[in-house]
């Protein structure tokens, strides 16, 4: 084979994945693979297919931390997908700055996104230099304590109303052979648990001081010390839950092996799939029952710049579909998250979702740490938290010292 033919063959294999996608086929990559998540994303696919285009599902198993590197390397490597999920905030910031993402401002203006998307901070974190680059699809909040009512009955204690009661119930639960707190081994879970404790027990001001102003002094101060003490208690309660994935941990709560889990509202989808009823089989305490604040992180779709005209048109169509009221309702009911628009009817929402909606309506929704800290700082925090939560030998003081260091150099 001569060089030219060889080069042509190479080029052909490189182009093949793009060539396969027909004009209106759009490959969408995401990391929604648990039962509840897959059911939710199927709603998007259905709505998009109804526009005459075709949703090519590109689910990547293993969670965001596995999926994001794959997505990024495909985009930077010149093999972009039609659309991709990121947590909005700073994960895709540099890709946008490098001009690899499509500007959606025209679609946004046509759909009046600025008016319908609530809270406004969602769209703000999609906006860079006045242009809109992503479509927020849901609001996720971390600050939830999920409890299995039956487990508490078995242990002979009333179902806790807040975090403090939950901690107090710990010894009784252990006696009954139930793990008080389920915590998966993936680093982001320990990190999320800590951030949740910080906001719930420390309040809005502490959250803003530490994560918005990145004030190292408060991070080293007595108020954060209290949070680390609480985290040490949580660590005590979580010993022995030898699972990795968050949905395995949630499953422990669903089956009654564990009494509670601090996890974002996406855990709700798992309860639903298992046929559990909010309020009866399980309880949810937003803000851990202590304070009524939630942070509004969430998922968003980004659209890499595509060469072909047809693909770009399909991208616009998908962007419109994602924000449409009907899709928002269908998707979020399955996903257990809150819709991004204030003007949709969620009469069918269950107890837990209604609690969340109420908090958002009161304006008690804060910006999440994913949006405030760079992935780099988040990773350092994760390294610290996973070390702290897995080894009882690390004292709260030592952990706080390192935490303050991370905050002082955070960006």
């Amino acid at each position, binding site marked *: 084979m001569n060089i030219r033919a060889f080069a042509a063959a190479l080029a052909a294999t490189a182009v093949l994945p793009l060539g396969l996608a027909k004009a209106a086929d759009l490959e969408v990559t995401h990391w929604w693979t648990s039962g509840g998540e897959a059911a939710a994303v199927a709603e998007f696919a259905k709505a998009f297919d109804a526009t005459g285009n075709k949703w090519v599902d590109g689910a990547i198993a293993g969670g965001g931390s596995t999926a994001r590197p794959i997505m990024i*390397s495909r985009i*930077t490597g010149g093999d972009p997908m039609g659309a991709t999920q990121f947590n909005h905030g700073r994960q895709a910031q540099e890709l946008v700055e*490098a001009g690899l993402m499509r500007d959606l401002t025209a679609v946004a203006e046509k759909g009046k996104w600025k008016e319908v998307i609530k809270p406004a901070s969602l769209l703000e974190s999609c906006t860079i230099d006045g242009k809109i680059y992503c479509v927020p699809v849901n609001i996720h909040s971390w600050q939830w304590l999920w409890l299995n009512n039956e487990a508490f009955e078995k242990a002979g204690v009333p179902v806790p109303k807040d975090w403090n009661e939950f901690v107090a119930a710990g010894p009784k639960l252990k006696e009954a052979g139930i793990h008080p707190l389920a915590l998966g081994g993936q680093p982001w879970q320990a990190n999320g648990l800590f951030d949740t404790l910080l906001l719930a027990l420390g309040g809005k001001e502490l959250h803003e001081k530490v994560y918005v102003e990145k004030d190292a002094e408060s991070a080293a101060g007595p108020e954060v010390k209290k949070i680390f003490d609480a985290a040490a208690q949580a660590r005590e309660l979580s010993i022995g839950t*030898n699972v990795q994935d968050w949905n395995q941990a949630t499953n422990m709560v669903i089956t009654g092996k564990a009494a509670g889990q601090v996890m974002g509202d996406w855990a709700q989808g798992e309860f639903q799939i298992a046929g559990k009823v909010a309020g009866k089989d399980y309880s949810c305490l937003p803000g851990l029952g202590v304070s009524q604040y939630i942070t509004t992180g969430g998922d968003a779709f980004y659209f890499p710049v595509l060469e072909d005209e047809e693909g770009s048109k399909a991208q616009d169509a998908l962007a419109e579909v994602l924000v449409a009221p009907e899709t928002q309702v269908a998707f979020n009911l399955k996903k257990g998250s809150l819709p991004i628009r204030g003007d949709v009817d969620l009469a069918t929402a269950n107890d837990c979702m209604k609690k969340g909606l109420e908090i958002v309506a009161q304006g008690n929704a804060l910006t999440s740490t994913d949006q405030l800290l760079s992935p*780099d700082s988040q990773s350092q925090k994760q*390294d610290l938290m996973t070390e702290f939560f897995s080894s009882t030998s690390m004292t709260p003081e030592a952990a706080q010292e390192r935490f303050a260091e991370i905050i002082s150099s955070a960006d």
Partner: protein
Amino acid sequence: MTGHAPAKRPNQLFRNLTAKIASIPMILIALGIFLGGSLWTVVYSFTNSKLLPRASFVGFDQFERLWSSSRWIISIQNLAIYGILSLIFSMVIGFLLAALMDQKIRFENTFRTIFLYPFALSFIVTGLVWQWILNPEFGIQGIVRSLGWESFSFDPLYNADIVIYGILIAGLWQGTGLVMCLMLAGLRGIDEDIWKAARVDGIPMWRTYLFIVIPMMRPVFITTLVIIASGIVKVYDLVVAQTSGGPGNASEVPAKYVYDYMFQAQNLGQGFAASTMMLLTVAIIIIPWAYLEFGGKKRG
């Protein structure tokens, strides 16, 4: 081939010309990708590149942060424990197995296949298999407990103090078969007459192995050492499949640090700094050794 001119010696440059032309692509790849890529990585480890490489230099900042990070220190310690132990054990076990196989036993082929079989599996598969075997609920601990020993406890993957040994077990299971085969080939290369001479002199078998056979197998040992050592430095998939670095970060390894910081934390600079340190470590070990082995006097 170039024709041979009878009078003057052919130009050295044009000897075996076809072979040289054929190896040009490989030379270019080696220079461009291995050397060029390594240099590029080292240069960019002095920058503050985030998601995309960016040439704004910050001196040794990345390295300072690297060495003050406890996760990196743990990674290095784990690599040292894993490396030294897996080197020793795979050599010792591999040699013992090979020596046993060399006793003209029956069904040698069968045994050899069994011992070598794990090597046919990738580290990911090995890791997953051992993750299940060591899982406290379904694996060894669960089985022994269901047999009646209720207090039996064996869960290395969930105990931060010994998790690296759990990974070591899997690594050894996978790797010793290959070492055994290499050693067996070496043993088979020893002249039968040497054994006869040793027997005539009344030297016990273990002494023959230790003082005659092993020194004669020096090249085999060196080949094995290089193969195992290169596998150790880049150990990554085994850890990811078995523990993903957990519990906490008790089983982190340098290669995983590099990957996580380059791609998950979107901090290329930090990842490059870590990989530069890995390169440096390898260089510090390899260069003096290669100099001793291949440099200096030419060995027959």
